[in-house]
């Protein structure tokens, strides 16, 4: 049984890799069209407003590490941070990224530094714009709660590996401005659904790269995910019918 599961997993991975490569390398002049998602529109509005008003954006990357199961959420948070940092680096108060893991905080610093360098504003880069506010989930939440009032934050974006403690971060951010949140943890999604202005439910977090035009591979992987999702749905329904009929 384990061998069968292993081969199925390998097949899914190979198929997804092929789809990503095909969509990424296909010559297409326009970006693929996806359904409308208000959280990403709100992100663009908040980003512009914070730059104009000279206030700060807080990107909460969560307490997950790159070696844990929720490392994908941390990577998505970092790609979104690169887009936010590129646009926000010209602001008087550049975006701030917090994390509960040292490696993720280091990567956040690197992302911010590259964004500043691309905008020829390296002299304004501050390494502590990517920081650890606490080690562990609760420690991170306790430190990140105070980021919004201390750093003049008007928009809080929670994109990473957070659990139910995300509600504390979101509630603190909601007192100062808008909150956009998404995570892979189901408990975290529940907490953000209640507290955030624009929650991302389920795997909508993975769509951030495609909606923010990070690069074509993100759009390609989103299309590949959509195709595979339909295949999985068809497989589940089909197998359920077959099993119900007693054929399997």
């Amino acid at each position, binding site marked *: 049984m384990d061998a069968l599961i292993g081969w199925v997993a390998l097949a899914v991975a190979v198929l997804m890799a092929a789809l990503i490569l095909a969509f990424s390398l296909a010559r297409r002049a326009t970006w693929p069209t996806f359904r409308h998602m208000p959280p990403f529109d709100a992100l663009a509005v908040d980003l512009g407003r914070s730059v104009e008003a000279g206030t700060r954006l807080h990107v909460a990357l969560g307490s997950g590490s790159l070696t*844990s199961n929720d490392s994908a959420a941390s990577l998505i948070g970092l790609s979104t941070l690169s887009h936010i940092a590129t646009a926000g680096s010209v602001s008087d108060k550049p975006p701030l990224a917090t994390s509960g893991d040292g490696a993720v905080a280091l990567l956040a610093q690197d992302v911010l530094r590259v964004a500043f360098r691309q*905008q020829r504003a390296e002299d304004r880069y501050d390494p502590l714009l990517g920081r650890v506010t606490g080690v562990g989930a609760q420690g991170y939440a306790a430190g990140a709660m105070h980021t919004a009032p201390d750093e003049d934050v008007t928009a809080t974006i929670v994109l990473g590996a957070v659990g*139910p403690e995300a509600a504390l971060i979101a509630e603190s951010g*909601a007192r100062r401005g808008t909150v956009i949140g998404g995570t892979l943890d189901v408990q975290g999604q529940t907490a953000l659904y209640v507290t955030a202005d624009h929650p991302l439910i389920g795997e909508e977090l993975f769509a951030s790269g495609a909606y923010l035009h990070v690069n074509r591979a993100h759009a390609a992987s989103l299309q590949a995910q959509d195709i595979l999702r339909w295949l999985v749905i068809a497989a589940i329904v089909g197998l359920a019918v077959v099993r119900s009929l007693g054929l399997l």
Partner: protein
Amino acid sequence: MADVRCPMCGKPNAEEAETCLYCQARLKPVGPGAEPLGAAEPSAAGGETVPDWLSRLRDQGSPTPGGTRELSGEAEAPSDQEASDWLSRIRTRADDESPAPSGSTSPAEDVFGRGKPAEPSGPVPAFASSAEEKPPASAATTPAEPASEEDEPEWLKRLRARRAVEGTPGAAPGPSFPAPQATGEGLPPDWMHAPHEDLATGPTAAPGPQPAGGEGIVPSWLSDVQPPAPAPVEPAPPSAPAAPAAFASEDDELRGAYSEKEIPDWLVSAREEAAAPVDVAGLAGVPAAPIETPPLEELLAPGVLPEWLTAGSSPTPPPIEVPGEGLEQAVLPPWLRAMRPVEGPLAPKGEPGEAEERVESAGPLAGLRGVLPPKFEAEVGRHPPVLPSLLDIQPAHAAHAELLQRIVSTPESRAVPRARRRPQARPWGGLAVLVILVAAMMVPGATGTSVFARPSVIAVETLQTANLINSLPRDRPLLLAVDYDAAASAELEAAALAVLDHVMTVGAPIASVSTRPVGAALAERLMTRTRAAHPQYQSGINYLPLGYLPAGPIGLRAFAANPWQAIFGQSAPEGWDAGMVAALHASSNFSAILVVVSDPAALQSWIEQVHTAVPSVPLVAIVSAAAEPLTRPYYESAFPSVQGMVVGLAGAEAYECLNALDPASGRCGRLGVADSMWDSFGMAVLAAVLILLVGGLASVIRRGLISMRRTSHE
């Protein structure tokens, strides 16, 4: 020596530098006596060489007696008096003469033939008033008007005389741009239609545009100096090739619009010559062949132009390359020569192409090679070519332009910007909820009552856990994985203590490990509290604390391969049982794995990394109530990975009451941690239910009232 800041990149440069060392931007604008724009401080009055014409200007307009006005990056504006002086001179001159044509050569016409507007008799034009407030950066380079009528140049006198002879001069030649629609929309006013020469070709044959509405947009002050209606424009000679139909009709239209204005002979002759072979392929009606302009040498001859145009202190520009045909070189003033475009680093090398071979024959660019012909390629979507020039696009500017392009190209946002939320003045709602919850939890303890019934039905997964613990061997250790944070210990310790107590009652050895930094301490806390009732458990004998396992799933995978090597790697601590230590060299030696988690992902890691490596070892999970929906599938699967579960406080209470429930009272005969918390837990949950009910109803009612109020206002 004061450093000069580059206006483009902001880096400091030497004061005498012409261009920036870092970005090659020009530090000193071209023009006689101009001050560098990025100067750190304004230069002293005597610190620079100022041309005579400029010093004269300053003397005339400077408020300081006999002093030169300092020119800094923000040069002072010409005073009202100065502006009024030259305007009044123009006005006076215009009154004496016949009305000047609109836009035709005015007393202040520059070398390109572009006329400047005469002094207004009515309201002051905007440019004059704005010039008083804030002059443009080129103010320093703008030549000043002659001081008095006596200084009027010869050429101007000659032009005026000619005008008097010719009567009303014709309309201004059209600009070098594609002829706009003569509908009056978007057209420049009449007085701007100066008989200027196209930089490449000189005055064109087509008359300039004029609004179909006539003089509707001509300022009143200029109407005094406007020429009378010009004579009808002569039609083009029949030998001239037909222009494209569209442009031909436009040309006729424009020609007709200017039929009332008298066109000077030189313009007519220029038009006739321009009617000779014209390249109409793909052009916007502008002739490609060079058109002869009135001899510029006449205008540029020494003595013709005033001193203030010819005098200058700018460095001598590079000499003009003489073409091979022996054309007479135009004598350009130094300041004009300095403005000539030079070949930059991007100049094409090797065999010169068509553009390189073409030599400009007229105008101030006469004698230069590679001057672009006035062609406009109307190819949709084609980006303009990158021309070698002194224009230095900074990487920062290019990056900003790219960012702007990206922002513009993103789909239009449909989100409605909402106002920034005001911070809450007082958290009354939170305080109220807190007070209610705390009061509810304190009631059972304060009153000593116990009104909540204990769970009477024990879940199957809990029973299976109990059965599995009962069947544990005593020669193989049980692995206790404490993978929860201290925050979840209040809920999970109840079940963990009940199960551990059962394990110690059975007598199975225990080895504890954690993938969380505080897990080792929490495991020690559990064991300390449980060992109080089971003192036979000694560390190193039948209890081995393995400590912290770093790197999450990676560490678990290594642990599954060889637990001892993953944790210690070398020798065992002193006093540890050798048999127990030997059992730790393979994960298959464990009798069972008891995982205590609050996060479903942690259980998932244990199942995927460890249980798949040793599927023969049963796995039992103690999970929080919040994690139940995501962990139950592992138990209810067709091929379950979890053989038993204890869920939340209810599961702990049920486990504690196993075989100890009193049917009569409904209470548990054996008091445990869960039992002591049960009443407070019940009160708190009931309070939460009431808060949700009341608060939810209040929210709905409040929302309805607001909607009704809004509707009634509308």
